């Protein structure tokens, strides 16, 4: 499941949220994801190299950053360290250093609300604008966002009932992640610690090369559609680029009527469905593909949510 979600994320450029207990391999999965991304083309390589060099990051031998970078700032990082800035000389922040690569935010809920809020504009526009008294600069910041969270404050999670967090603590914890930011994650998965046999034998996984080739092929398809990745398909072109079968349309209508997805979610699900169909070499989105895309964004069901027909009181 996790491996497949990585493949979809890499192929379509969809932001990914992983939740799971410590030791489930979230960091490992994030670094695996960056390995699935294709090598940078000359233009991108030059740009990333410029940003890294301005930020004072050591460059690889040869001086050119050829592979997509991965940045994993700690949740204690300051706002300036994340988005860039500085007094005498403006320096790019972590999100710009992750340009054309992966920005991995472990313990997403521990980042300050201000830091999470600052991510929204770059996520929308692919650039970050930093204004200071002396001047304002625009720096590139188009990254694949990978978030990781523990299921609850104690970090144990696991099967229902095994956790010692109170309702209040869980609610506080999940509230930090709620809202617009959570909505930007097209893929939300729960990861578990790997089984012992997987750790010892490595399982029967496909190699990075095999998966990477599929990822590159899907990205190539996106380029033919004149979009950067499937995640960037404008909503008005969805009917043209990601046509739905009648059955798939019914599934979406049902999901909307049950409030399983919002209007914004609808667009995002259709983009993910485009990527899933591309990976299966299918041109039209059928019920299977759209359903699996819906399942990939399944939110933890919250029984404590207030019934909507009652509205808010006071």
């Amino acid at each position, binding site marked *: *499941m*996790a491996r*497949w979600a990585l493949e979809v994320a890499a192929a379509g450029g969809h932001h990914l949220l992983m*939740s799971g207990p410590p030791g489930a391999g979230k960091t490992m999965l994030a670094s695996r994801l960056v390995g699935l991304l294709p090598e940078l083309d000359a233009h991108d390589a030059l740009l990333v190299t410029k940003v890294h060099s301005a930020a004072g990051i050591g460059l690889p031998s040869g001086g050119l950053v050829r592979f997509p970078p991965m940045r994993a700032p700690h949740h204690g990082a300051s706002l300036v360290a994340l988005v860039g800035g500085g007094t005498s000389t403006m320096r790019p922040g972590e999100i710009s250093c992750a340009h054309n690569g992966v920005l991995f935010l472990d313990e997403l809920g521990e980042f300050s609300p201000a830091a999470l809020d600052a991510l929204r504009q770059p996520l929308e526009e692919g650039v970050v604008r930093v204004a200071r008294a002396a001047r304002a600069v625009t720096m590139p910041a188009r990254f694949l966002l990978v978030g990781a969270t523990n299921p609850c404050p104690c970090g144990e999670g696991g*099967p*229902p*009932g095994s956790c*010692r967090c*109170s*309702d*209040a603590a869980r*609610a506080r914890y999940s509230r930090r992640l709620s809202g617009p930011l959570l909505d930007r994650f097209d893929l*939300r*998965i*729960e*990861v*578990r610690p790997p089984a012992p046999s997987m750790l010892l034998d490595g399982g029967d996984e496909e190699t990075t090369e095999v998966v990477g080739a599929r990822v590159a092929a899907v990205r190539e398809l996106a380029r033919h559609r004149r979009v950067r990745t499937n995640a960037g398909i404008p909503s008005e072109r969805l009917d043209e680029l990601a046509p739905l079968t009648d059955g798939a349309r019914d*599934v979406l209508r*049902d*999901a909307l009527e*049950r409030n*399983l997805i919002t209007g914004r979610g609808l667009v995002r699900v259709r983009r993910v469905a485009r990527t*899933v169909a591309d990976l*299966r070499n299918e041109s039209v989105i059928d*019920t*299977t*593909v*759209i*359903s*699996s895309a*819906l*399942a*990939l964004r*399944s*939110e*933890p*069901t919250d*029984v*404590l*949510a*207030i*019934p909507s*027909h*009652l509205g*808010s*009181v*006071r």
Partner: protein
Amino acid sequence: MTAKQSVDQAQRLVLAKLPGLGPARLRWLMSEGASVAEVIESLKAGQLPPGLSPPRGAKGPELVRAWFAAASSINPDDLLESHRQKGVSVLGPESELWPFINDPEPPLLITYAGNIGLLKSRPAVAIIGTRRCTTVGRKVAAKLGADLAEAGVAVVSGLANGIDAASHMGALKSQGTVLGVVGTGLDVVYPRSNRELWGQVSNSGLLISEYPVGTTPENWRFPARNRLIAALADIVVVVESHTKGGSLHTVDEANDRGRIVMAVPGSVTSAASAGTNQLLVDGCSPARNAADVLDALSINTCSVSTRPSRPAVPDRQPLSLLQGLILAEVETGGVHIDDLIQVAGISIVDLLALIQSMAQAGLVALDGSTVLPGANT
């Protein structure tokens, strides 16, 4: 309301406001047959009602002094007026709606917000349980609340976190009758996280307390609250309880009052079900679903259908072999999708699509990447 009743209510409010006065001490204070007015008069005069000697123990004299001070400092009319200003009404034992006529430990009065007529709503079932509940427990409580409410049963609970809140949310979802009993003044929302629920129960149901407005939460007030829950319900259903906890206290109170107690069976490995499973061992009836509870209420479940809240599923397809396999896997609790892949032997895309379609049909619920039993199974 007559002027005399109004004076009586004001005096009862004063008595209910005395610090540290729980049901047992109240019974003791009234045990020599003095009326509420007489008790207040003696306290004001710095004396216990005739025939009572100060309680023993180190804290006894101190407590009595606090009562003397409170009785003379609180103005009954102002206290009653402050309830009016806050939109909280008062109901005393003289009312024909008074539900605690034969109760061994009746409250002095109840303060309420909402539709007081619901006090007589029958049948009434209390759905209670631990605050430290599991996801499954919360779902069971919400489903029980919704289904019982749908069948016309009033759902009583304590508005605590966890099971209490979930059962009321469920009942509110089916627009049923909800009755909340709280252990603070009605203007002191506790716990704060339930304030929306609090407002909804008072708006579309009834919220009651035996304490005047301004009463802050104290540990001992919640067990006292439990006895009112037990008194108001025909049946008390415990959804989840640890081996020790307030829920089991409510069970004791229910037993004292001859109420039926039922418990939801839980996994033997779940600490949150240890208390309820013990109740079952001790001879409680199991409540697997609303139908079991309705049976115990002797409501003809044929006429209300055994699964009251099941939505009409159009063109309900027979289960495929694979769907049956998945249902069997998730029957006993949550299963991660990764485990289902092993069982199902189909591709991840096909499996996710199948689970999503089953979730939309209500056969299973998808919680993150964990598949749980659905509402319609």
